[in-house]
């Protein structure tokens, strides 16, 4: 089963390498990985999706906590969450499918962000399934190039998942 992990790490050199190295060394496969700053100084947030049984993920969590720079690990898989991925898709518009492409952009609530006489770049945000669905539809219409960010995730409801009692971190 695909798990969605949120990992809060100290923003220090080499941390990404440590996390990636741990996944490799313990033979886990990263499906997607995103990392970025948070609203807290010195704290970065990663969202990693990884295949594994519940047991595997519990082991992984324990290994992650061994890393000195790892502050918190949360598995959002079985919680109510919002997970979003973003894709940019460049498609060929020099065919008779041009109108169809625009229709699909409408249907999927995607956005056209660049237009030339021969091509379009479409931006689409959504769950993994939605984006996969869109790509499937676009394939026969002529994809030139494509890029995806990988998922970012957040728990629903009014609480913050970040739990830093007296840890010395401060809001920016």
């Amino acid at each position, binding site marked *: 089963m695909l798990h969605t992990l949120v990992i809060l790490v100290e923003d220090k050199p080499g941390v990404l*390498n440590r996390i990636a190295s741990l996944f490799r060394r313990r033979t886990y496969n990263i499906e997607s990985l995103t990392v970025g700053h948070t609203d807290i100084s010195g704290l970065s947030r990663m969202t990693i999706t990884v295949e594994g049984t519940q047991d595997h993920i519990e082991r992984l969590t324990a290994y992650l906590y061994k890393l*000195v720079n790892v502050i918190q690990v949360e598995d959002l898989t079985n919680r109510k969450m919002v997970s979003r991925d973003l894709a940019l898709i460049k498609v060929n518009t020099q065919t008779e499918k041009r109108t169809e492409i625009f229709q699909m952009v409408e249907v999927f609530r995607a956005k056209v962000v660049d237009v030339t006489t021969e091509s379009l770049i479409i931006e689409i945000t959504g769950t993994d399934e939605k984006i996969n669905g869109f790509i499937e539809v676009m394939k026969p219409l002529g994809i030139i190039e494509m890029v995806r960010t990988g998922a970012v995730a957040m728990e629903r409801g009014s609480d913050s998942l970040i739990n830093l009692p007296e840890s010395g971190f401060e809001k920016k």
Partner: protein
Amino acid sequence: MKKSGAQIVWECLVKEGITTIFGYPGGANLPIYDAMRDYPQIHHVLPRHEQGGGHMADGYARVSGKVGVAMGTSGPGATNLVTAIATAHMDSIPMVFITAQVTSKLIGYDAFQETDVTGITLPITKHNYLVTDVEDIMPTLREAFYIAKSGRPGPVLVDITKDAQQAFVSDWEYDDTQIVLKGYRPDFTPAASSIQQAADLINSAKRPVILAGHGVLMGNAMSEFKEFAEKNNVPVAMTLLGMGGFPAHHPLNLGMMGMHGESWVNTAIQEADLLLAFGMRFDDRVTGSLNSYARNAKKIHIEIDPSEVNKNVRVDVGLIGNIKEILAQVTPLVEKNERAEWRKVIADLKGETAVRDIVNLPDSGHLYAAHVINELRRLVSRDTIITTDVGQHQMWTAQYFKIEEAHTMVTSGGLGTMGFGLPSAIGAKLAKPDREVWTVVGDGGFQMTAAELSTIAQEKIKVNVAIINNGFLGMVRQWQEFFYDKNYASTPMISPDFVKLAEAHGLKGLRASTRAEAQVAIQEAREYPGSVVIDFRVEQEDSVYPMVPAGAALNEMIRRPSVIVETPQDE
């Protein structure tokens, strides 16, 4: 006070209470060496290879309980340390490795002797650092020592660029405030309910066995352990690294478990209804096949590292934290129990095996490693420190050199590093100069780090070397005999004349080929004021018994054959 980065390195070592370090100079760490003369309170030992220096610091740490410190220069100096770092990592030894790095401006440009040491050692250190700014040297070294010794100990590497060593801090002062690391959690305490749960399981168990690991020694929990075991009369099986945590002669001590554990030990584990794993990690060498491992036993695991609990074996109660404190809480909740019946079952398992033991057979004129080690045990004092290399002689030492006292046995368990024996003995001797120190090595592993005999000579210390010389890479030969049709590919080994080798180093060399000669040689070595190397010419194709083949069930052992085939005398 104005201090250079190099001076700060030494200042920090002094503040950490370090009195001996092991290091090798080179271009990138020259500033550190240049500053050394200002710090005569630290004794610097020059090994003949950085690996040797690393193992010396490791042996030093294992017997002293202090953090072992080893240094190397950039590039090859650092890569030569890698085996020592991995060895310490597998066995959770508190160590700080200080390597030098090329000037920060050159990093990334493939400069002369540039190696990405923090990258290389990332998976084999507890943590590591690259320091490029002189201001960061002190805080980083303080963190390094703190991380190395707290929680589950381990090696930490600090790589310091040459320019950071050369730069100055104008008014430097040592900071001795409490270190707080936001993401580091060395201390756990189990819930009271889990402690009670564990006690209940122990009280209702009929056939409990303790699996005593390195954690008992690392956590200095020897007396709490003994009190617990004695109150409830639980038989104790030892891991290789656990030896010394509980006296060998104690009636509850069954001996070593696992691949070369005695049959009664492994059988007791397989038949147990409760396993109490204390500071051990269910390594495959002690469990055999996990599918058939102690199937009817409930399991309690006391462990300092949360990631070890439920890793290899699912447990019923995991108590994560400091073993000394946990045992002090558990013991009062445990009832007194004689366990006469269970202990008799185990005692009965012993009887028949002991007779077949090689040391109980009449003298055939052939010398066996078991005789040598048995003699050694008989002749030296209980507090003698023994280090081993890796191979058959290591297992024979574990079987025959009954370890009575804590921190007197030093061996590479997790990594099984050949070449560890001699340098670790040098480190042990420097940590405990008043103790008698012996290393038991194979002819193969000894030659991996034999150059350190020269370090012994330079340090003018007394370390006795017992070479169990069987003319083979014995342990591998044994596997070839058992599992590869006696195809002895690349295991026969020619050696130099070890007596002359010792003499070339200004040490004494002796040779022994019979039991009588062995005894005389050991005596002579003990009485001689300097270091002695003894070449024990032992039976060439002897094997370590019993043996659980890798992946087999723990009680499926290969036993010593009743008819013993010996090498013809004229060989």
